[in-house]
């Protein structure tokens, strides 16, 4: 016999499905292909199509931009079960997200956990409405793996902080309105204790950006420079000198996202790509080494997906799996890099084409190059292995 909640969830699913089918434009149900397919919002929002605009506005009106946040912050106030259903139904139809936003994925959770009520009311509704495009300022040229070694300083000047320094790997900083930043506010105490979490308007005097070109070509990454930027004290989130707590909270969050938990993987099977490129003799790929490498890769890929499922299932029974996020991040990125290596290998000289020409768009080689960053961004593989050995295996320092 179904419980009341079950019944209402079933109804909710039905209604959700019907609403999505009626309101999500067909073009918004197609996979993301080019940069324009993302809508980012911001002070000067640019919709790349009428459908993109309609879809965002309908979802905003329905309060489903961030369906699981509290209604008072502009969220939809859905329960976790309802939110899961909505996510499932959206992915069933292939609906794109109405907006892509580090405000929703990264800053929001930090604000909800650490900000004052006033700050929540000030920033969260704007995030939901897509009025502010946020970017993230963590890493610095000399503080990569050693994030807490950051040097950008915020000096207390009475009413305001004076911020000087630079950040690197700030995605879309050149297009963003605001940056959330880790800055050093105490220069005496141990390095983890003197860090604060600050929100900085990119239009403040003294803020500038420079795009970063990668080995794969253009990228959304920037360097961001702060030259004696005055930042009001009310822009501090959490307590002074306790920003490291917020950083750690968000890093675990980020690792889980990169590790791919919950992402729907629609990658083509590697052996399919091989079969399109390479000849068979007696039903086997002629290149025996490649055949074995593909088989070994697909073994690991398939079992890794099962592992995501197993750990998720175990978590439901109360086995906390938080510490495993480093394993997922490490393994997922290593797998993706192997995948790109194998695709390059099985494509022969065609796969090496880097500039668009009559036979290739060059994307394969660029994706290959881009994958080299996987095991570096979001915490290097070395850092993840350190975390596993210390936090999971309990090996001594």
């Amino acid at each position: 016999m179904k419980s009341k909640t079950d019944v209402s969830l079933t109804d909710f699913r039905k209604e959700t499905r019907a609403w999505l089918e009626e309101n999500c434009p067909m073009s918004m149900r197609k996979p993301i292909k080019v940069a324009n397919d993302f809508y980012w919002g911001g002070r000067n929002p640019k919709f790349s199509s009428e459908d993109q605009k309609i879809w965002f506005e309908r979802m905003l009106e329905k309060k489903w931009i961030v369906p699981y946040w509290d209604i008072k912050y502009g969220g939809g106030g859905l329960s976790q079960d309802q939110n899961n259903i909505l996510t499932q139904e959206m992915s069933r139809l292939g609906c794109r997200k109405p907006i892509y936003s580090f405000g929703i994925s990264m800053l929001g959770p930090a604000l909800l956990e650490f900000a004052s009520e006033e700050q929540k009311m000030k920033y969260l509704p704007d995030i939901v409405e897509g009025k502010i495009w946020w970017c993230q300022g963590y890493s610095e040229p000399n503080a990569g793996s050693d994030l807490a070694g950051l040097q950008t300083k915020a000096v207390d000047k009475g009413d305001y902080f004076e911020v000087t320094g630079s950040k690197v790997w700030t995605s879309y900083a050149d297009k963003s309105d605001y940056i959330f930043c880790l800055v050093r506010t105490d220069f005496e105490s141990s390095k983890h204790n003197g860090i604060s979490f600050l929100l900085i308007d990119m239009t403040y005097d003294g803020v500038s950006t420079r795009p970063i070109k990668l080995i794969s070509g253009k990228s959304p990454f920037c360097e961001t420079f702060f030259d004696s930027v005055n930042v009001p004290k009310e822009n501090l989130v959490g307590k002074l000198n306790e920003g490291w707590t917020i950083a750690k909270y968000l890093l675990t969050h980020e690792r889980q996202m990169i590790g791919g938990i919950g992402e729907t993987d629609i990658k083509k099977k590697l052996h399919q790509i091989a079969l399109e490129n390479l000849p068979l003799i007696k039903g086997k790929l002629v290149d025996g080494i490649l055949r074995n490498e593909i088989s070994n890769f697909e073994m690991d890929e398939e079992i890794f997906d099962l592992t995501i499922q197993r750990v998720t299932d175990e978590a439901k029974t109360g086995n906390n799996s938080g510490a495993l996020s480093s394993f997922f991040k490490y393994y997922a990125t290593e797998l993706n890099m192997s995948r790109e290596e194998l695709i390059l290998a099985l494509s022969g000289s065609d796969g090496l084409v880097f500039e668009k020409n009559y036979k290739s768009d060059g994307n394969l080689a660029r994706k290959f190059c881009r994958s080299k960053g996987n095991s570096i961004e979001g915490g290097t593989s070395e850092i993840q292995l350190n975390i596993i050995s210390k936090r999971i295996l309990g090996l001594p320092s």
Partner: protein
Amino acid sequence: MALIISEEQKMLKESAAELLKIKSPVNSLRDLRDQNYIPYDKSLWNEMVEMGWTALIIPENFNGLNFGYVGLGQILEETGKNLCKSPLISSCLLSSSVINLCDNEVLKAREFPLIMNGTKTMTLAIEENSYHKPYDFRTRAKLEGGNYIINGLKTFVIDGSTSNEIILVTEIAEGEIGFFIINREQKGIEIKNNILLDSGTYSDIKFNDVIVPKENRMNIKINGKELLKDILAIAYSGIASEMLGIIVESFDITVSYLKERQQFGVPIGSYQALQHRASKMFSEIQLCKSIVIKSLQSIDYGDKERYKYSHLAKAKLGKTIKLVTNEAIQMHGGIGVTDDADIGFYMKRARVLQQLFGDYNFHLDKLATLNKY
């Protein structure tokens, strides 16, 4: 299907862990070996029988426990952890499965009670040379009058030195495969025993015009080839379960050692090179756990993809068991290569299991073939 074990299965696993910890520490393997390779501890076997392990996969209508392969897998994982020797693989995993999947109901009624109460152990004779080639038969059964006449050689037969009955799989006519149950005392059977790396006894069994009555044919209407395919999936997954136990335990022993062993005034586990190698092993073990439970479940639920999962399990575990047992010895340093240390016994058992029912190479090749490349 959630990829977790049920509360019942968990209890079964814990009770096995408890029993084996007391009754079968690694030292008992050393003792059995030093007493001229005693195959297994009979009194411990009797306790296993009492615990119901011989009844785990036998259906309820034959008074079995019907706990399925996920259940049996938990036991095998625990025997792996303790390197416990017993006829569980030969008799319960392999032979009971053949009897169960066949359609010789007389046989079921007669043999299941004897297996369950421990009166009889059985084994499955499948290989015919040094490599796993399950569909490549040179043994032959010929129907003459009311009997089959069997000729040929079976190798690498687990517990061939102690099993009461030998289940033989062989070709009868071109493409027709039959399973036969044959008493070890039958005339024309010649058994030669080999002591392998894991201190286990494996037999080469020669069949010289062995006369087997028609009633001893186990698959009557059921297609022998399909049956063999299912038995192999069960074998791969079951062996992978024991391998998981070996991997998990040798890793745990090693991590403990890394914390204890001091060199240069610090525990060697504080060296980053060893830490990273340990973390990589940890990661591979996560994958091992997932594929073992998935493949066991897929058999219990008759999942169409069970063949694929069983290859994945044996391949992944085969690759990982080599990595982990080699690293375990290396990380133990000098003590690791002495007979006094337990860790070497894990490496030795690991190498036998890796060969048994096909190594990593075999299964990776099959996986590619399944995907037609």
